[in-house]
């Protein structure tokens, strides 16, 4: 059930979508491909699914060379950002599709569809058409449909991208629970670092057709391998020639040794945390994150000149 990506390159005309990409995905793991749009993450996912074919390199699924295998013979489940629901079929028929084309016995199909509809909490919606479902329900149906033929790997392309924030968060939790239950090797593509950190056990950060770093969420945050990862995974400030996380900075109202002089532009409170946006003497923006208690203790005001210091010695060298 493992997936091995070996030296994959893919060009679309003049555009290099993937440039010599390699990635190991362990069987049963939940991996996120994280990156900005155009970084090649969706292309890589589609190559793993067989919906695109690489110019160079190999794909191995469960140890077998799948590079030239047609998508219908790969036994992968794929979930699209815009659901790709079969609009002329009921929810039941959508979920049953993969089993029907495999000519499974009718009774087996009925049982499996019943179980999956229960799993995605759509038991009551089996006879509806996709147009009669909400976005979140449609995506759950698409997930059930992808899982029905018991795929070796489950691939999700920005699965929550078209949904509103509350439904996104709900489905995120739900995907994590589902993965604990079903244990199918899962790769999902996202541009949202919070989503990747929240759901995945392994994250591959992609940029310009290359993988910048692979690691668990803590590794990416604490030991970013490059400037790009530092900036893309969590927020980062450039102070002199070093990169510092906003919560590793503090603000002093008096001049402090090693402090950078800056003016407060804006103060925002988020529950327990507060975020102070500043501009230093060179016009560079800075973001400092402090606790609410600290903010009240400092008695800061907009327009005030302060000194920003790194209160942790944990600053990251530029790659």
């Amino acid at each position, binding site marked *: 059930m493992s997936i091995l990506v070996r030296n994959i390159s893919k060009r679309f005309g003049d555009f290099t979508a993937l440039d010599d990409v390699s990635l190991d995905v362990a069987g049963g793991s939940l991996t996120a491909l994280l990156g900005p749009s155009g970084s090649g993450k969706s292309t890589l996912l589609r190559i793993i699914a067989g*919906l695109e074919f690489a110019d160079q390199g190999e794909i191995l699924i469960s140890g077998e060379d799948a590079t030239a295998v047609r998508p*219908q013979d790969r036994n992968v*489940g794929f979930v*699209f950002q815009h659901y*790709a629901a*079969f*609009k002329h079929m009921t929810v039941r028929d959508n979920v049953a599709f993969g089993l029907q084309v495999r000519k499974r016995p009718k009774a087996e199909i009925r049982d499996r569809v019943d179980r999956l509809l229960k799993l995605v909490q759509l038991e009551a919606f089996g006879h509806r058409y996709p147009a009669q479902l909400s976005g979140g329900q449609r995506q759950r149906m698409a997930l059930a*449909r992808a899982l*029905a033929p018991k795929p070796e790997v489950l691939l999700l392309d920005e699965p929550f991208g078209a949904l509103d924030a509350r439904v996104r968060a709900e489905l995120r939790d739900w995907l994590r629970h589902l993965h604990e239950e079903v244990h199918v090797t899962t790769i999902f593509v996202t541009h949202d670092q919070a989503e990747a950190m929240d759901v995945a056990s392994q994250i591959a950060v992609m940029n310009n057709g290359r993988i910048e770093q692979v690691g668990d969420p803590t590794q990416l945050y604490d030991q970013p391998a490059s400037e790009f990862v530092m900036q893309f995974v969590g927020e980062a400030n450039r102070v002199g020639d070093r990169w510092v996380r906003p919560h590793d900075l503090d603000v002093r109202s008096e001049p402090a040794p090693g402090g950078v002089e800056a003016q407060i532009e804006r103060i925002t409170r988020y529950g327990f945390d507060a975020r102070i946006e500043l501009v230093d003497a060179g016009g560079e923006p800075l973001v400092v994150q402090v606790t609410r208690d600290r903010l009240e203790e400092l008695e800061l005001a907009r327009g005030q000149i302060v000194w920003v210091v790194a209160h942790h010695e944990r600053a990251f060298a530029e790659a």
Partner: protein
Amino acid sequence: MRRYALRFVALFYLSAILIAPLGIVFYRTFEDGFRPAWEALSAPDTIHAFKLTLIITAIAVPLNTIFGIICALAIVRKRFPGKGLLNAFIDLPLALSPVVVGLSLFLLYGRTGWFGGFFERHDIQVLFALPAMIIATIFVSLPFVAREVVPTLREIGDEQEQAAKTLGAGGWQTFRRITLPSIRWAVIYGVILTTARCLGEYGAVAVVSGRIQGETETATLRVEERYDSFDLAGAYAIAIVLALIAIAVLLTMTLVRPREGTT
């Protein structure tokens, strides 16, 4: 007020151009009662003409439906050299006068034409016979299915087809279970237009058929032949049957269309 003005203009135009002439045809047909009309319709040559029209339609419509769907799929889903040309050529029968189509078939299948010699050696009569009439009808009714299906295929996109593939469906299964149901109303609409065009075809068939009464005379040719023989009641009667078929076809279309929105 303005709404009424618009309606008035639209209705007036329609009655002047369409309803009045059609009404006169009806009036003239039954001017002397039903007997002359019935006699004209029950004449063996007329019955043969209608049979011929139906045979040609029954062959041309399925062929153009299959070809139209294949062409639309090629234009929308595939990339290949010459795709732009194919796209442009499909519309050619709409732009070309049917008489030109007939003449070009003459040049191809005539005794000195490119294929003429081949068919003559094998003793197959193409011109002045059913084959040429079918080819001419196929040519003039070629674009309708493809032109209806292309925009629908573009609109539905190919994600559903991709999803079907990842679920294990082969090419034919994907077409039959996903693509075809999604484009079915466009196909039906195209088939209706093609049928109407085949039933009404005159120019190209007139050139290649030789208009032999009781042999290569279709219903539309029969109308003209009756008219030229001063059998006005006969000409009108056949014209009316053709008009009624056309109206029936159009009614089917309007009945089909609203349901398009619900899928």
